[in-house]
């Protein structure tokens, strides 16, 4: 044991680097939620018909529901592969606090699946005729909301890892918890389209994110331990 043990920041960045390398070598995988997001919104645009006013009214709801479902779709990947190949056991047996490692894993997952949704959302907002003035609120609400969705979802994934056919179970477990984020997220954008002040909803979204940041990591670890037990 001559060399000094790796520090926690090193372990944190090593995990992030690992996830980005894997994502780069397996490109199709992280693009799927993004494509789902784009296509499902396009479907709404086709189904709602060519009335620009109607589209603009329902645009906040469509974008937010699509973002929520795309997050849910990608969610299983956050711990599934690590569970299957044993990397999760090694993570829990590391001398570093496992909650921080779980946070690193959730962060890289959000960067790969949640952040791209935010980047393409202005384009889709244009397609749905969302008023220009609501664009900052749309971006900000997604920026605050999707990490909260990832954190809350990761708890559900940790709990359902050991279950067979966990997809539907995960949705049933997680979707009710997503409701507050959805209400405040879509609400903020809707208020902004009417020219109102959406700061109350955005602050509440921020509060949810902070709460999730504080509580989710330890809960995720408890779920992971239960799944591996």
């Amino acid at each position, binding site marked *: *044991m*001559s*060399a*000094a*043990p*790796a520090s926690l920041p*090193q*372990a944190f960045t*090593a*995990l992030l*680097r*690992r996830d980005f*390398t*894997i994502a780069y*070598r*397996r490109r199709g995988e992280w693009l799927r939620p993004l494509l789902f997001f784009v296509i499902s919104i396009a479907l709404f645009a086709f189904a709602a018909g060519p009335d620009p006013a109607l589209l603009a009214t329902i645009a906040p709801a469509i974008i937010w529901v699509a973002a929520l479902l795309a997050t849910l779709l990608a969610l299983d990947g956050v711990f599934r*592969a690590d569970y*299957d*190949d*044993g*990397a999760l*056991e*090694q*993570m*829990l*047996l*590391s*001398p*570093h606090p496992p909650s921080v*490692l779980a946070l690193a894993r959730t962060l890289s997952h959000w960067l790969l699946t949640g952040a791209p949704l935010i980047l393409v959302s202005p384009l889709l907002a244009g397609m749905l005729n969302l008023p220009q003035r609501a664009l900052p609120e749309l971006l900000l609400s997604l920026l605050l909301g999707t990490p909260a969705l990832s954190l809350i979802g990761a708890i559900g994934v940790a709990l359902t890892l050991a279950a067979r056919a966990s997809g539907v179970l995960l949705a049933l477990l997680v979707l009710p918890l997503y409701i507050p984020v959805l209400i405040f997220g879509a609400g903020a954008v809707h208020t902004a389209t009417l020219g109102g002040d959406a700061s109350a909803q955005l602050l509440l979204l921020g509060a949810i994110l902070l709460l999730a940041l504080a509580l989710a990591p330890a809960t995720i670890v408890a779920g992971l331990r239960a799944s*591996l*037990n």
Partner: protein
Amino acid sequence: MLQIRGENGCGKTSLLRLLCGLSLPEAGEVRWNGAPILKARPDYHRALSWLGHSTALKSELTPPENLVLAGALAGNAALSATDALQRMGLRDCLHLPCGALSAGQRQRAALAGVMRRPGGIWILDEPAAALDETAIGLLERMLEEQVAGGGIVVFTSHRELALSRPQQLHLEQFR
């Protein structure tokens, strides 16, 4: 060095997972240096190397990338990843993703990861699985060196390994 023996399904793996702290015992406790492992977790995990049925190698990454990552998580790597892999005879596979390796080669790579952290406690579940004769020789030498260096090895193996006097623990089937 302690070898745990017993029939299939008698609880060898369960016992090893209890020792690691991956499972929690219904009664009793596991201690490391006198302290329950749940309290001494960082200390214990700094000394512990666990190799179970799954190798924890990412199939998209090459063996050295995998070992460097594992080292960053576990710490205390005394041997460089490339050196360890070469000692396990994987010189020609360093640039291949682990998904392209055979089961035996992946097991060798996983053992190289264990080899990088000598001196603590190694808990190995069927370390000889999928290994060929040469690799089993390497494994035997690696275990002997670990014990000679003052380390602890607890393992299960259905294959007889040529080791000098491992202590044996026989688990009886109980219900």
